[in-house]
């Protein structure tokens, strides 16, 4: 039984560690201070900015990530292994390094042309999008590939023999079958984008009322010793994260056919 208790004890330790951390946040704030900080225009701006940016970045990541995930899951092509390795770049690379790479890129001739004739990224809203997109695109693709891998290609084979084109077989059969997996990937990607800090602050800066997303606002609040605001934002990010995780669990219950 000692073995069993050791293992369960470790699990409980992890729980206490995180729960204690969260409980300390609640201890350090008062209800009136909480509402004041929450209702402050700069806090509301950060929340709105984070939600919009994370949603758009996730949309872009799915737009390119879903077909890429399909290709990696279903087709054999030259360089597939290399593409697969590169999906992990944002996971192994520090977010600040990722943001710094963008800054360097926008100083190259091509980067300058893009900024001059197209969209201005550095210290602007599109910069937030780009930083969040760069952080999550690989993850989104990897997660969606994993859920597509779970669906036997045989379903599509049968659908095609029955008269569906490859596009039709995808949206009539594969997409509905993998829907909950894809939805879970989208939610996790969104939560990751909403919490992104390093790349965003490097590329888009920390300008209040312009590029100050929630994680950046936490950082600036702490820097200016506004602990109350920092705690409010941390709690909101935490709630968003927990809701996202719960939603992922819920998707497991929806659309279960077997």
């Amino acid at each position: 039984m000692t073995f069993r208790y050791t293992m369960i004890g470790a699990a409980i330790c992890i729980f206490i560690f995180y729960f204690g951390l969260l409980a300390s946040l609640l201890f350090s704030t008062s209800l009136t201070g909480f509402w004041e900080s929450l209702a402050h225009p700069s806090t509301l701006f950060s929340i709105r900015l984070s939600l919009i940016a994370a949603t758009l970045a996730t949309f872009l990541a799915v737009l390119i990530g879903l077909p890429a995930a399909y290709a990696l899951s279903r087709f054999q092509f030259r360089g597939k292994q290399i593409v697969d390795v590169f999906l992990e770049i944002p996971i192994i690379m520090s977010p600040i390094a990722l943001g710094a790479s963008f800054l360097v890129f926008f100083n190259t001739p091509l980067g300058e042309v893009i900024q001059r004739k197209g969209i201005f990224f550095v210290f602007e809203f599109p910069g937030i999008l780009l930083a969040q997109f760069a952080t999550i695109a690989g993850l989104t693709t990897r997660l969606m590939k994993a859920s597509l891998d779970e669906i036997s290609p045989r379903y599509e084979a049968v659908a095609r023999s029955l008269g569906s084109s490859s596009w039709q077989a995808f949206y009539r059969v594969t997409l509905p079958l993998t829907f909950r997996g894809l939805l879970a990937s989208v939610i996790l990607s969104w939560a990751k984008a909403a919490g992104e800090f390093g790349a965003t602050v490097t590329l888009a800066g920390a300008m209040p009322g312009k590029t100050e997303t929630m994680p950046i606002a936490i950082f600036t609040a702490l820097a200016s010793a506004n602990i109350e605001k920092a705690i409010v934002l941390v709690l909101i990010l935490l709630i968003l994260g927990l809701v996202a995780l719960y939603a992922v669990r819920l998707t497991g219950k929806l659309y279960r056919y077997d």
Partner: protein
Amino acid sequence: MIKIEGLAILLKTFSLTDLHIEIEEGEFHFLLGPTGSGKTLILESIIGLHKPKKGKIWIGEKEVQNLPPEKREISYVPQDLALFPHLSVRENILYGIKAKNHSLKNYDKYVDSLIQVMRVGHLLDRYPANLSGGEKKRVALLRALAPKPKLLLLDEPLSGLDPSIKYEIQQLLKTLHTSLHPTVLCVSHDFEEAFLMGDKMTVFINGNVEQVGTRDDVFLKPRTKQAAQFLGLRNLYRGKIFGKEDHVERSFIDINGLRFSIPKGACQSKMDSGREIDLYIRPEEVMILREGKSVKESLKRNIFIGNIIDIANRGRHHSVFFQDGEGKISFEISIPNYAFRNLDLSIDKQVTVALRDESFWVME
């Protein structure tokens, strides 16, 4: 008619050089081969999921090897069935008709008759997860047949089923074939399945076609030893031709120093002296002679005296294992249960056996 000509498939894990199959309209054709011989890949190439390196595929008058799967008019029932889990049985069945943008009205009667034959009327609103193994097979077959394909491809349709369900599906396939005459190409490793259901069959071993023929052709006259072994045939011997009796059109074959007189009809090619051959002795054509009973002249050519070394009760018949007196050859004799009882056979009993002319088959 379906014609596959010179099909060559080259994949990382599998290669096939030159496959020819011809299937008449309404024929139930078996592609028989051992497990792992690439049968599923052949099916997937015929459907159009893998691009063949070479070869042509005709469906009727149409050459289809360059067409995408959805334009080939071939339905496919994979081994795992792949019923769409998110669609009800009804939606599964109608999938092909809708995918082809055909009017459901034109198929009403046909689909209804299929539903009746397949006895799935009570399952239409259920989802595949709530069906038994046999029900899933019936729905998968129905889904494949509903859009009236010109060719139905079946991948091991009876594998992984309990014996009673296996029998049920076997009977159903037979009924279906008799009443609707779909053209079927079925891959299987199970020669009994092929024997019970197939009109014609192609035996495929190690990437080579060993034999093509009717059921009786293949089972009674295997072309090569490899084919015979795969078909589970016993009593296969290596021998040498050592002479002819030309006036009666017979040859002598020596096996381990024993002489057998073989009729010309038991050979596929010329029986030249000195040539080494493989001989198949059909267990059901060997007679155990009753003591004291006179023997027909035609049987006297191949009579051996020896002992019974083993007996196996096979349910519907008995297998008696015979060894000649000098221990040079032993073979299995298959006899009906009533004959087994009448002859009062037991292990170690001395018996005289006669090999009818029909017992012999010489392979290439």
